[in-house]
């Protein structure tokens, strides 16, 4: 203290307790003022929004809450609702889902064989784990490579050796590539890698499978394609389409950016053609026209034809997405790859594609979501899709003739769960792979 005379001076030795902020500046009220009622326009918007939510809930909730889960037929459902909630009450009849859910999931797949699609689904999750999550050991990718053959065997049945010889073809190809590269350079390696598996499949695979089958028969009951339906069908078409269209789409996008005019224009023509026509016309083609262009006397399974068309369709879209990613790469990356002396494929594999694909992830995933949703269109070529095909089949039975909303809500929610999950995952991936520091 410098001035001792000012004894009466008041010096506070303890801090005053902190005053709470005014009521309008704290807690819920502050939050509401800032986020809901910050101005006349916002107030109106908030009120309108809340009113809309209220009206929708008021209309739909009683119907949802009056739902009946166990009944044998629609009439029984209606009787239960009337009995429980009084005359004129309206309610959802979820019993149709409860009764018929195997059909929605598996179509007409034999019920004693349900374990096969189930197992295939679980294996699929295992197979895509190393692709989705970096933490899973890399060796798992081998299983991923083998998965298509395994799934094919599980779903369609028949002899296991068929799947084995198909896989053996790939293994032969890889061995041929390694040997060829060591002995005779790139040309021999690639040539052998293509030729040997093709020869194997065309000439030896059948007899090898037959011989192995005779030695150790390991068969599953053959299931015809017409038994496929519901979400099983949507998944088979969707996953095949996704799996095959990605490599094809990358090749197409590279072709479109190729220096060779012929390849470039063919790719451009193909991509623009596919993108220019609606999927329905391609499905019609699969259903009506494809058989005209095959050797006389062969006819393809309809599901297979649809998968081919869906794959081509989605490949064209993916090609465009990847092209966008390629275009977004700075030229320096290409020049750096050239400066390092990498050849075209090495440059693509090591430098260009990892970056381009990273940029295109959101686009690729949304293409996949689109493809998965588009599997519902197969109803137009009379395949039993989960949304309408199975629903129509269910409604054609006299017990459930007249059910309308419930099946749609059910399959709509399942589609929502998967598509929403995929889009969330792509956002996660985008964040994870974001390596620039902006």
């Amino acid at each position, binding site marked *: 203290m410098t001035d001792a005379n000012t004894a009466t001076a008041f010096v506070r030795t303890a801090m005053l307790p902190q005053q709470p902020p005014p009521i309008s500046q704290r807690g819920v009220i502050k939050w509401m003022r800032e986020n809901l009622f910050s101005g006349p326009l916002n107030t109106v918007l908030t009120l309108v929004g809340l009113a809309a939510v209220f009206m929708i809930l008021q209309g739909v909730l009683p119907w949802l809450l009056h739902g009946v889960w166990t009944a044998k037929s629609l*009439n029984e459902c*209606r009787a239960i609702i009337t009995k429980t909630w009084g005359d004129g009450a309206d309610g959802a009849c979820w019993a149709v889902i409860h009764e*018929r859910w*195997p*059909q929605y999931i598996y*179509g*007409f*797949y*034999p*019920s004693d064989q349900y374990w096969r699609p189930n197992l295939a689904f679980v294996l699929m999750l295992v197979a895509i784990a190393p692709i989705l999550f970096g933490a899973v050991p890399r060796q798992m990718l081998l299983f991923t490579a083998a998965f*298509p*053959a395994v799934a*094919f065997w599980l779903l*369609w049945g*028949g002899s296991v050796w*068929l799947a084995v010889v*198909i896989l053996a*073809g*790939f293994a032969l190809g890889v061995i041929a590539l390694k040997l060829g590269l060591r002995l005779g350079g790139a040309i021999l390696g690639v040539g052998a890698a*293509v030729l040997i*598996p*093709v020869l194997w*499949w065309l000439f030896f695979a*059948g007899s090898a*499978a037959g011989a192995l089958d005779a030695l150790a028969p390991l068969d599953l009951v053959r299931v*015809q*394609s*017409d038994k496929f339906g519901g979400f099983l069908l949507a998944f088979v078409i969707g996953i095949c389409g996704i*799996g*095959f269209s990605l*490599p*094809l789409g990358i090749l197409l996008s590279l072709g479109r950016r190729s220096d060779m005019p012929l390849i470039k224009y063919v790719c451009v023509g193909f991509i623009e053609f596919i993108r220019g026509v609606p999927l329905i016309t391609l499905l019609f083609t699969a*259903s*009506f026209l494809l*058989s*005209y262009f095959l050797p*006389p*006397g*062969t*006819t*393809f*399974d*309809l599901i*297979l034809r649809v998968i081919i068309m869906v*794959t081509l369709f989605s490949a064209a879209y993916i090609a465009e997405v990847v092209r966008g990613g390629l275009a977004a790469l700075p030229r320096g990356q290409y020049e750096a790859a050239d400066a390092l002396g990498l050849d075209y494929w090495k440059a693509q594999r090591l430098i260009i594609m990892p970056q381009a694909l990273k940029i295109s992830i959101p686009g690729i995933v949304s293409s996949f979501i689109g493809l998965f949703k588009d599997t519902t269109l197969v109803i*137009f*070529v*009379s395949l*039993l899709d989960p949304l*309408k095909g199975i*629903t*129509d*089949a269910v*409604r*054609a*039975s*006299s017990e459930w*003739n*007249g059910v*309308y909303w419930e099946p749609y809500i059910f399959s709509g929610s399942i589609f929502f769960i998967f598509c929403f999950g995929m889009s969330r995952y792509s956002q996660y991936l985008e964040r994870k792979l974001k390596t620039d520091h902006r």
Partner: protein
Amino acid sequence: MNRTVFLGALTVAGLVASFASASTLDEVKARGVLNCGVNVGLVGFAAPDANGKWTGFDVAICKAVAAAVLGDPNKVKYVPTTGETRFTSLSSGEIDLLARNSTWTFSRDVDLKFTFTGVNYYDGQGFMVRKDLGVTSAKELGGATICIQTGTTTELNLADYFKTHKMTYTPIAIKTDAEGKQQFLAGACDAYTTDRSGLAALRAGFEKPDDYVILPEVISKEPLSPLVRQGDDQWADIVRWTENALIAAEEYGITSANIEEMAKGTTNPEINRILGTEGNLGAMFGLDKEWAKRAIAASGNYGEIFEANIGVSTPIGLARGLNAQWTQGGLMYAPPFR
């Protein structure tokens, strides 16, 4: 690369079937399964049940043919077809036989190169309206909004009918039963038109069927018949005579209950010829003696099939009408087996 491999794999798997070999009969026999095109889902005619088992009037034809040719009524692959896909499925060889309530018309028979194997159901297009609309005749429908189920000859008949009677109407073309029904029940159309059998099936599924009436007018002839590709007469004959066997069986009182009894031999030579106890008619088109016996045993004779799927005792409740035996005043008349 991946894709071609997949194709190759499936080729081996036999998903890519070959049908050019020889006749349809040989091919069906070699395959061991009859590919039969049916409706995607029409109550009473063809619809899968909860276990994926197909039942219905049209399905019974598939079963009878499979029983006659392959000896087992269950060796059938049912291929659901829409109005658009049915004819191409048949001409491209995807199916061997189309049993999908299709009307026998000149252009389909001649221009599209199909062979209709004989009418198994005589139908006609009609109208259904709400009872409280107070309409008692189709002639009072001038200015009405009419729901049409597309995919048959329905649109053309409707246009012709209203033109003849100098009336106007607003068509609403509906793709499937379910949507049409929902529209009709909500009152979005005054009348619903399709084949009268379809109307009956539809009405059977209503909450209050009695609130709706089917108007008396029949505005078209709809002879529904199974069909096969033109150019394979042997196969067409097999389908045609399988149907005839079912019709004849009803006429001579062969039922699924007494067929074993009758197959031991009866005093009626016609029955004996049908059931193969006398002569060998089946050999004439490449089948064995008992083909017709198996066809009839599959789901009974024509009358039994009718009663079990769409008859008066079913919710659909169709009377025999034109589809009764000729002896009962109907049009079902099987040519003699000799």
